[in-house]
């Protein structure tokens, strides 16, 4: 997994709450058996007009959001299905960071598996970032630093966030968590020996 230490990039502001994973990656695109190539389908139902051209009214299609790598949204981002295709699509599109006041649990965990950092800030801080993104009509940049756990811009905005220390370490070091867990194989075997493998009937 690609490590995440610090990232500076353009912000795309998606001013919506309860953005569900069915919107992030609609089900008709879940049939691929690869992890890659989902970015072209990100927010497909919102992003494209019926004729397949980009909808200019959709937030990600605005000129100032071109090349965005930091996604800003309202609360409960990523609710709904467990599909990891959602973070795959966001990452493949180019996002490295999602900032919101709250996230759905499964989506939140899935981000960390893909070198993408979900950042929880307060409602007020998120509201301020929406104001700053919209203020100039120009691309707005944020720096998200996982070593200092801070989000900053060049205009005086600073906010700090917390991350589970283990998830943080995995991201900073780009760890393969399965390999790490397999270093505890003896403990797993010991658990199985102590509990007896749960009986499988049939």
């Amino acid at each position, binding site marked *: 997994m690609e490590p995440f230490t610090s990232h500076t990039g353009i912000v795309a502001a998606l*001013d*919506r*709450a*309860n953005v*569900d994973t*069915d*919107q992030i990656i*609609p*089900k*008709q695109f*879940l*049939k*691929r*058996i*690869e*992890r890659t190539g989902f970015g072209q389908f990100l927010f497909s*139902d919102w992003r494209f007009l019926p004729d397949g051209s980009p909808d200019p009214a959709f937030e990600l299609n605005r000129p100032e959001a071109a090349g965005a790598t930091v996604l800003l949204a*309202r*609360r*409960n981002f990523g*609710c*709904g*299905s*467990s*599909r*990891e295709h959602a*973070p795959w699509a966001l990452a493949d599109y180019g996002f490295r960071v999602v900032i919101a006041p*709250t996230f*759905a*649990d*499964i989506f939140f*965990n*899935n981000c960390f*598996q*893909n070198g993408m950092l979900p950042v929880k800030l307060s409602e007020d801080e998120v509201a301020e970032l929406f104001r700053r993104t919209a203020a100039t009509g120009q691309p707005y940049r944020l720096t998200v630093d996982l070593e200092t756990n801070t989000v900053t811009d060049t205009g005086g905005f600073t906010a700090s966030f917390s991350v*589970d*220390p*283990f*998830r943080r*370490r995995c991201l900073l070091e780009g760890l393969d*968590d*399965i390999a*790490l*867990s*397999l270093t*505890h*194989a003896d*403990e*797993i075997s010991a*658990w*199985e020996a102590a*509990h007896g*493998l*749960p*009986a*499988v*009937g*049939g």
Partner: protein
Amino acid sequence: MPAPRTLLDKIWDEHVVCTPTGELPLLYIDRHLVHEVTSPQAFEGLRLAGRRVRRPEATFATPDHNVPTTDRRLPIADPVSKQQIDTLRANCQEFGVRLFDLGDADQGIVHVIGPELGITQPGMTIVCGDSHTATHGALGALAFGIGTSEVEHVLATQTLRQAKPKSFEIRVTGRLPEGVTAKDLVLHLIGRLSTEGGTGYVLEYTGECIRGLGMAERMTVCNMSIEAGARAGMIAPDATTFDYLRGRDFAPADFDGAMAAWERLPSDPEAVYDRVEIFSAADVVPQVTWGTNPAQVVGVDGDVPDPGSLGDSSEQASAVRALEYMGLAVGTRITDIPLDRVFIGSCTNSSIEDLRAAANVIKGHRVAATVRAMVVPGSGRVKRQAEEEGLDRVFTAAGFEWREAGCSMCLGMNPDTLAPGERCASTSNRNFEGRQGKGGRTHLVSPAMAAAAAVRGHFVDIRGWEYR
């Protein structure tokens, strides 16, 4: 004396393998359920790393999300769907995983066949790459959905990295009124908790109302825990649970011995939850969602609400968007909303009990001329049982389509979808934009409410239904 513990505490404590310094605990997973959509990348990951499935005999697979619900003897028309189903078959063969394949008598929706076959048991930890894994908590298991990377982790290690969630007791007092179902109860609860009220928690449903529910009803309630943001919902095992499990294919050989252990699982009387909310079953009326998330719900005797009357500014903005998408005007009576489609099925409401309830409403009636209606049983077993009872003939005589088992129009990955603008009364679990087909409009209801809506062509209050 040991400190009193909740059901969650007991299962959690039992399953923590170790908590290495500076790391999240490794939680042992007793049962891993696998389907075709969220597993191919996980098996590919194992292959690339040269890893094996640690406990193939604790891993069970079935294709459900993608499968056609038409005649199973016909080839699968969509080559991409076919490839995903073929891939599952090949992976199960290569890694030694038990597959309930298309054409197998026991194939079905993964959350229906787990309990039905007795794979799901009290006190177990159960995961699946699907958010509705919460269903299995109805049998007193800790069950939750995971992503594909976690699927790979469980396949390789039989454990999951997991921080302990908080506990949330949802106590429901009294009994549900006549005509009000478990689906109405859980929609009512979600409406009050919001779509994120349960985030970070495991919900434990308790109280007289819950104790009085049958297994199918309990599964309906636990199934939708995720729609309130909770990864898991659970109900303490009791005589209802044990009676349901006894004699099922994968039930323990020493059933009485297992039962003695299961009887120790319910939360201790003095156990403390991180949060408690108390609801009255008597307050619940038949529910209909009006918006694009399951918390946007109202009683069938109500109207489409004014967004200005709801929550804070972001909830209000959500509601404005939802009404626009749903093509609904503020103040419209719910019973005046006309329908094009009716779907009875999904892991939420496809049990034999659900089909009986719907058939009972339909008996002697016809589906309205303006409505196309279908029934999709949750599993091959449910389908056969229904056919033995003659329910299929009740449905087809009334004008319903009678289909093969699968997830079908709950998420419309297979050909069962809504056309843009079509409005559907659905017994499924999500009314998100485009969930049942791009531009489709979904209203979540109980099976009885869906059946009545099919007959009348619009929503009706099932409490006043004329049964024939």
